[in-house]
């Protein structure tokens, strides 16, 4: 006659360990994407960090994204991952003596870079400042809306990502989803971003923006020429920012950024800091130039200047 001990051994014993395993397995199974379970969901889940992908892996990812976007927006979408050009470091100049605060740049940027229209995301914030106070951010106003600009006694200072040489935003990212590229552009891998928004807290220029909702991007207005690290459509819950129109400027020859192209007064200048013949170098060498919040030692590559 078997004793109590052996009977216990034979019976199903529910240990705490087994219990936890079971609960884990059930929860895991419930979390699986059931209805829209396609191969791409799994591929996206197991996608590597952008900088760790091999070329074939990256090409596969780009093809997958192109297919996804084409389905969502009903048109052929190109997603490129054009690498940086050797010997190029981008710099930007903004002529404060010219800017009239018309906000043409804000909306040209939204169109070019596929930002969410609703809820609204703007990479460029145009500050209206008092001429008497000078660059005094405490008294800046960016909701100004008179019938005509410029208004008397005011000047205008557009602020966007300054593409810092020492970016505080990339340092704080816990998953390295944002980094500075070799050509100085600070980029975000939207597939790696976990949405913690530490970078937004770290940025002293308010240049990073969070997708609180699924971006509202009308298919008709979607710009199909995209870059993986730039203007490709973003998912909900990731941070995005100005990339100096990476999809435009990384080509040879490369177009000027959308904001430079649209500016009606020619206040915006763009070029290669390493080319002594470039416009931006001429500005730095010949004009009165300043950078915003110089004391923070972020070393922006966005130079405000006065041409007159």
């Amino acid at each position, binding site marked *: 006659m078997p004793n109590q001990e052996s009977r216990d051994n034979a019976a199903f014993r529910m240990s705490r360990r087994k219990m936890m395993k079971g609960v884990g397995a059930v929860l895991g199974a419930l979390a699986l994407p059931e209805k829209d379970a396609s191969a791409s969901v799994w591929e996206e889940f197991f996608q590597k960090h952008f900088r760790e992908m091999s070329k074939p892996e990256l090409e596969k990812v780009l093809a997958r994204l192109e297919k996804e976007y084409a389905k969502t927006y009903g048109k052929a979408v190109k997603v490129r991952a054009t690498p940086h*050009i050797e010997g*190029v470091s981008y710099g930007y100049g903004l*002529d404060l003596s010219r800017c*009239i*605060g*018309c*906000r*043409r740049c*804000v*909306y040209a940027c939204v169109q070019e870079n596929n930002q969410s229209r609703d*809820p*609204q995301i*703007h990479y460029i*914030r145009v500050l209206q400042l008092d001429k008497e106070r000078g660059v005094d951010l405490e008294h800046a106003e*960016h*909701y*100004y*809306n*008179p*019938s*005509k*600009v*410029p208004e008397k006694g005011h000047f205008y200072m557009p602020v966007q990502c300054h593409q810092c040489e020492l970016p505080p935003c990339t340092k704080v990212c816990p998953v390295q989803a944002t980094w500075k590229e070799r050509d100085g552009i600070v980029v975000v891998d939207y597939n790696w971003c976990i949405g913690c928004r530490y970078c937004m807290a770290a940025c002293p220029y308010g240049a990073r923006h969070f997708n609180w909702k699924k971006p509202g991007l009308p298919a008709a207005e979607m710009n199909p020429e995209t870059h993986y690290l730039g203007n490709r459509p973003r998912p909900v819950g990731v941070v995005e920012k100005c990339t100096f129109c990476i999809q435009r*400027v990384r080509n*040879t*020859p*490369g*177009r*000027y950024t959308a904001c*430079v*192209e649209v*500016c*009606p*007064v*020619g206040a915006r*200048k*763009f*070029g*290669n800091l390493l080319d*002594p*013949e*470039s*416009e931006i*170098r*001429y*500005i730095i*060498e*010949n*004009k009165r130039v300043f950078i915003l919040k110089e004391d923070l030692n972020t070393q922006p590559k966005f130079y405000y200047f006065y*041409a*007159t």
Partner: protein
Amino acid sequence: MKRGRSRNGLVLGIAVLAVCLAAGTAAAAQQKKEKTAGKPHAEPAPEKLFAVPKPPFTPGIFPCSDCHKEMKPNPTRRELKDEHTGIVLNHAQGQRWCLDCHDVSNRDKLRLVNGERIGHEESYRLCGQCHGDKYRDWRAGIHGKRTGMWNGEKQYLLCVHCHNPHDPQFKPIPPMPPPTRPEDTK
């Protein structure tokens, strides 16, 4: 004696050699100096012509000679009463009038102060006579809007594409809508 002469010859030879050497180095130095004298931003010669889009003429106004070839030029400064009444000069109007910029004998040309006649597609040279600082910046790609390729072909615009030559100051324009306030976001 013989020895002395040869020594003299040697000294002379050395002297000549030294002079030649010195001259050579000086010349080389001079050459080098000339080479490095170019400033990092050597200004393009003012004569260099820039490719620009066609001047923004009022439709039907150009060529001016269509009307003017039959007319006898009247070089007297006066207010125009019959034609061109829409043009109100608001550009140092006390100091000049039409024929300071428009050529009196060839109505399709503009006129520089030195008497040179230029086409409208070169009008930046005319503006540059007074606005030298802007002209310098424009040539370097700083003044005015530049489109095209940042590392390739750049598109220049004429001064008159943005500034009305008769009334050059920019007029205020309506701004695009302000951003949504966070409290208004749904």
